[in-house]
């Protein structure tokens, strides 16, 4: 859009009333814009560097591979292995529950439903995406925890509800990118609609579907609010792998440590944050790279 002629255009204006002032304003606004972008990137850098630097004293191989050992003075001298395992289980369960449903929803809206119903469901997904995650946590608390007890299942379901609209919306976009000529070719060969979906549409869109799921995982892996009411009270310091009990997990562990006043707890919180932020940022970057690639491939 901005070829060389246009890029050079601002220089053309030479004289005219107020030319000097106009150029000065232009230069000022350009500088402000550049500064704003720099500031945003700097904030990201500042947070990440803070986490890395502050985590350095506490992070070690032992930290991620041993369970908490609480000293007589209340400080954890062990690690957070049980939280890492718990988080992995929670996120895996949530993804296993949400991704198939999300893909089915996307198939329905792009392949079967008419324009109106498709739009309605898309709208519902947008609203679902806008429900504050703490409210989602309270919802699951209301249907599963109240009258029973906290459990990994409850936490995983809360995460699944948050993951669902994210994955479904991105799956819809990907399915819509599949050229309709492919579908028409299938129809011309006399294939049923469901076979076209299974044999042609889904394989073509697979890369994009995986990307959307990775993005969903990255999003829910760091969620704390929905776990607060569903899987946050665990007295067991050992490894817990059964989702029918409350599962220790990294976000709640960080939250608990951050509220403490003890510097040793803060060091642990930073170290746990480093583990989480590396996981989340890595997934986000990978998802983005995959995203670019799969889009290009479908278009070709």
């Amino acid at each position: 859009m901005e070829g060389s002629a246009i890029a050079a255009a601002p220089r053309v204006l030479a004289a005219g009333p107020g030319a000097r002032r106009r150029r000065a304003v232009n230069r000022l606004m350009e500088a402000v814009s550049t500064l704003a972008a720099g500031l945003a990137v700097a904030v990201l850098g500042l947070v990440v560097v803070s986490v890395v630097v502050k985590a350095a004293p506490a992070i070690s191989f032992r930290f991620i591979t041993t369970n908490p050992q609480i000293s007589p003075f209340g400080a954890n001298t062990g690690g957070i292995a049980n939280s890492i395992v718990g988080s992995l289980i929670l996120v895996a369960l949530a993804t296993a529950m949400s991704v198939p449903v999300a893909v089915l929803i996307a198939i329905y809206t792009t392949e079967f439903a008419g324009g109106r119903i498709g739009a309605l469901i898309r709208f519902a997904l947008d609203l679902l995406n806008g429900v504050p995650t703490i409210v989602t946590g309270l919802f699951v608390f209301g249907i599963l925890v109240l009258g029973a007890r906290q459990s990994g299942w409850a936490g995983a379901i809360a995460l699944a509800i948050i993951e669902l609209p994210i994955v479904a919306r991105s799956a819809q976009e990907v399915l819509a990118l599949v050229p309709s000529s492919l579908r028409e070719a299938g129809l011309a060969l006399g294939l049923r609609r469901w076979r076209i979906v299974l044999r042609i549409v889904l394989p073509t869109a697979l890369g994009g579907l995986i990307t959307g799921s990775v993005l969903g995982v990255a999003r829910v892996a760091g969620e704390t609010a929905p776990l607060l009411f569903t899987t946050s009270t665990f007295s067991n310091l050992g490894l817990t792998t059964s989702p029918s009990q409350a599962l220790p997990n990294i976000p709640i562990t960080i939250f608990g440590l951050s509220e403490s006043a003890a510097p040793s707890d803060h060091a642990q919180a930073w170290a746990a944050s480093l583990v989480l932020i590396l996981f989340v940022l890595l997934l986000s970057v990978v998802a983005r790279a995959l995203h670019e690639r799969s889009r290009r491939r479908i278009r070709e």
Partner: protein
Amino acid sequence: MWLLSCLAGWAAVALLIWIAETIFNGASPAISRFGLGFIGSRVWNPNAAGGIGSFGALDFLYGTLVSSFIALLIATPMAIAIAIYLTELAPRAIRRPVAILVELLAAIPSVILGLWGILILGPFLGKHLEPFLKSFLGWIPLFSGTPSPYGMLNAAVILTIMALPIITAITREVFESAPGELKEGSYALGATRWEMVRMVMLPVARPGIVGAVILGLGRAFGEAIAVTQVIGNATQIKASLFAAGGTLAAQIANSYQSANPGLGQASLIYLAAILLVISLIVNVVARLYVRRVRVR
């Protein structure tokens, strides 16, 4: 296949209704006891009325509105500026990387941003920025009071960081869809780059930017964890931004363990119901704005 996917599609709609139903159901003891007066009441005392407790939402509503509006006041101009940089100024090679870095801000888990708010941002605000603001602008009630690491200002800064990438991403998308002929036309008439942005891109993009800002507002309203970590969790309305406060979402997160079953818990869920209604309205309005631009 049709049946399965149809079921899944409608399940999404049903889930939304189920969430609303469950929340309002859980809040019903508090709704029937306090009615709509809950929204205008400033009490939050679990021990009042002989241990039954007396509850109201006004202080948290105030905190939610103030912290979010300040966040948007900072985030909106910044996001527009970043979007201008990304669509008009940045060299082609660094355009994508910078856009991705800004969007990665949204990927930082809120609990980590909150930890950063407690241990890094808070001390900086309390020791440096707030005394500075106070010495220059102390005559404005907003900047009076005792500087403190935790409070409304800290929450507002954290919310700014969270809303910024959302507003930037949508604004950039809208800017990119601005018709090239109009831009070229204004350049041909001798406009500077800023004049082109001000007179062509901003008017064309206005509905989209409004939608983006409202979406950012929705994000800020609903944030529970990071806000409860840094806002100080007090039931009070103070003019000073340095003072502690609370928001709807933060109050729910803060008292999750201490709420006793019964009226206390129902009142907490009543807060969630108010939050849910606000979020749904905000999202509906925002989507309508953003869609209008996309359709065009």
